């Protein structure tokens, strides 16, 4: 058995008195697609943000391909990881945000090329070349020189995926990538994600798109009140599990989406 892409063990996190993560265990294998679902406030986004240590966790382990992120465990106990080492780990982890977070003062092409130049150290010609290839891949090559303010939500999110992907990350994190989109724009983003999954990208996805989760995920983890209370293949989580909180969550989701 190879080392998993992500391995979380007993991860806890509190904002002041509010315990957001209360002992999370989750493993994502290489080339596996795992969807995190759960009610709002359950801690799923926080958990995702802990994986690349944009959010720090208080205790427990999060290992990326076997390497603990954010801390060093030594004989004297645990100490924070240095900034440089953290950067080196982060650039191998792509992240896509709910609100795209494209840099508005840079064209789509510059958004993708900028990290390649600053972080990967590519020349501007090489960076532009790879950025164009990435934009082409997400179907945005004709929008390369357009600023984010003039792209639709779906186009922005595809550009943001291209930006993350251009770094050639070992795994990708998606934080509700379609939640800020108009319903008719969701499909184009999910399509890009589906093709990524088909190519064997390791993906951890926080989502409310149950249909997408059911079709694309290898495994679904249901998180509630800071704990993973159920996980398994989509069929098990959506149809077989008797976990009461999961059933209630799915019922609420179902009620809201039926008309």
């Amino acid at each position, binding site marked *: 058995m190879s080392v998993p892409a992500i391995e979380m063990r007993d991860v806890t996190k509190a904002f002041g008195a509010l315990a957001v993560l209360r002992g999370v265990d989750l493993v994502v294998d290489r080339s596996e697609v795992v969807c995190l679902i759960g009610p709002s406030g359950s801690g799923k986004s926080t958990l995702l943000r802990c994986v690349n240590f944009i959010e720090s966790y208080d205790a427990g382990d999060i290992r990326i391909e076997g390497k603990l992120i954010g801390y060093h465990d030594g004989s004297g106990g645990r100490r924070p990881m240095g900034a440089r080492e953290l950067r080196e780990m*982060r650039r191998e982890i792509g992240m896509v*945000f709910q609100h795209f977070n494209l840099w*508005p003062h840079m064209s789509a092409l510059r958004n993708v090329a900028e*990290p390649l130049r600053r972080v990967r150290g590519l020349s501007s010609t090489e960076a532009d070349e790879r950025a164009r290839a990435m934009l082409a891949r997400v179907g945005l090559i004709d929008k390369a*020189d*357009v600023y984010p303010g003039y792209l639709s939500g779906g186009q922005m999110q595809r550009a943001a995926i291209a930006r993350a992907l251009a770094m050639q990350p070992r795994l990708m994190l998606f934080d509700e990538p379609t939640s800020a989109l108009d319903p008719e724009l969701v499909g184009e983003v999910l399509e890009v994600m589906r093709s990524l999954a088909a190519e064997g990208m390791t993906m951890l996805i926080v989502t409310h798109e149950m249909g997408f989760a059911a079709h694309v995920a290898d495994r679904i983890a249901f998180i509630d009140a800071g704990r993973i209370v159920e996980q398994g293949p989509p069929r098990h989580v959506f149809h077989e599990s008797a976990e009461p909180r999961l059933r209630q969550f799915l019922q609420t989701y179902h009620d809201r989406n039926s008309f």
Partner: protein
Amino acid sequence: MSFEVLWRYMPSLLGGFGVTVLCWSLGAALGLVLGFAIALLNRLRFAPLRWLLQACVEIIRGTPFLMQLFLLYAGGPFIGLRLSATTAGVVGLGLYSSAYFAEIFRGGFNAVPVGLVEAAISVGMKPFDILWRVMFPLALVAAIPAIVNMLIVLSKETVVLSIITVPELMYQMQTMAAETFTAFDSIFAMAIFYWLLVEAVSRVGRWLELRVTAFMTEKARTA
């Protein structure tokens, strides 16, 4: 209204105008650099430094420019700081405006959406690159109207330098008025000169504003 007197004094008035523009531009440049530095240092999570800087900002903003200038020019020699009137004027303008510019830049940095910084962190960008490539351009967009506004205010604050005998426009005007008893003419001429300066500053300001916000304009659609 005596154009003859104005004409006769024009060389000294133009010279004074030149000194005004020089003091203003050097003082503003110093203020912008210092203000930016203060705003940056304030971002470091080092509380004592932050308190110290904030105290300086509060003191400068809480006291009249005239008093600060006197303190610098007349009080400076007591601590071994001997500045010429013009140098004291430039340094004074710089220190005075730095407090305001620091607050303007602070506001600008605060206006940068945290998600845009997180995106830069998530790809592993270095703090310096995040600052210069992501935060600074966007902070500038938020801050530029206030910066231009402060530059205009500062251009008129230069009149205070006349009190420590900097030979700027106000000083030359007062000399002319005293020598020729033409109070109204000098005030009228002064209004014209300062209006020209302010107009020029605000035009340059508008041009700058358009430049840094180019990505939000219609042309950016196709770029």
